[in-house]
């Protein structure tokens, strides 16, 4: 019996860890997609010190650069302040769109594993009370 309990606990530990790590590192969130503009736009944000997410986005036009948590970059706040997502970096002009890319898989896995821990705890307590464990 103890082997079964340990095995279930081990599986739950692995799924919880995978859920936590997955959501932190592969869980989507704020995403930047840059497009190089051929002409100077009427309105743009002159960026003198872009953060590394913005630099990564303009270095790879058309590709999604996942920022993750919205607090990791202030670019979305600049877009709101200036009312445009056009930027100028080193004399080049880009449109950098700010998206939320949703990946719920890891969060759902974590939620299921948390539910598993609750059920596991109840069963384990019942087994201890009955003297089986």
């Amino acid at each position: 019996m103890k082997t079964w309990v340990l095995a279930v606990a081990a599986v739950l530990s692995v799924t919880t860890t995978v859920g936590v790590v997955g959501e932190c590192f592969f869980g989507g969130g704020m995403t930047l997609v840059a497009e190089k503009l051929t002409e100077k736009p009427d309105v743009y944000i002159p960026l003198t010190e872009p953060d590394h997410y913005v630099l990564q986005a303009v270095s790879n036009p058309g590709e999604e650069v996942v920022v993750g948590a919205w607090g990791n970059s202030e670019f979305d706040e600049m877009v709101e302040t200036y009312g445009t997502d056009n930027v100028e970096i080193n004399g080049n002009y880009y449109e950098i769109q700010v998206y939320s890319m949703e990946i719920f898989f890891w969060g759902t896995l974590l939620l299921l594993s948390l539910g598993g821990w609750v059920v596991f705890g109840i069963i384990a307590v019942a087994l201890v009370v009955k003297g089986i464990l």
Partner: protein
Amino acid sequence: MANQKLTVMKGLLLAVVLMLVVASRVTRVSGVPQEVVECDLSDFAAFANETMSMEERLCLEPLRIPGPPPPPPTPPAENIYVLIVVDDTMKWVREFMLGRSCPWTEIEEWAHTIFERGVEQFENDFGIGNFYHVETEFWVPGTMGLQDELHKAQTTFNWPDAYPAHYDCMVIMSGNIDGNKVGYAQKFGYAFIMSVKAAFLGMPVWHVFQHEASHLYGAEDHKGLDGWTTWCIMSYTWLPLTRSWCGRCTDIISANKHHFG
């Protein structure tokens, strides 16, 4: 003669005193000097003979005491017209779930149900109750990622600039299998794409709709530690279980509730 002079003098004195009383009263009531009522003191005889009414004597006009300011006019209801685009992969997901083939009308009905339930909480919590799902478009976009499909749908239907009718918001419902991605929305944008494959995870798909629509009002995701500790539909962890917003997201959406207005 002397009595008449005395009477006139008394009348004048009384009139001056009354004027002072009235002026001080008008000033005291409003806090600022108001229009001063001028007394016609030419008819002293009438005054002295008490043929004038009390109001005439006191030179009083009905005082206009300022009441509470009128309530601000209620802004007209903002109707939010929504165009829903449904693709063939959503049909495939529905058929897979039901284990039978479905006509497009049934898919449209499902899309409308997702829409109705997705906007329900906006009405309950913020009074944003005038979403109208006006039209459904069907299309076969081909194989591509969700983000590309979002752009292609807007290009294909010439939305919003050249679409035959005006719509405030475009929602693309798809069953697109694009890795683990379930949706894309631009913060303060006017369109989003959602994948109904979230149903395979046992997730109510209208929660995904509500989550994406919240981004249009400026709400941000809660992920990682923030997501685990925040009971909110914007949390990546608790989204399947709740339709409510946390205090932070409630404030943001309240502040931007006229985003489409």
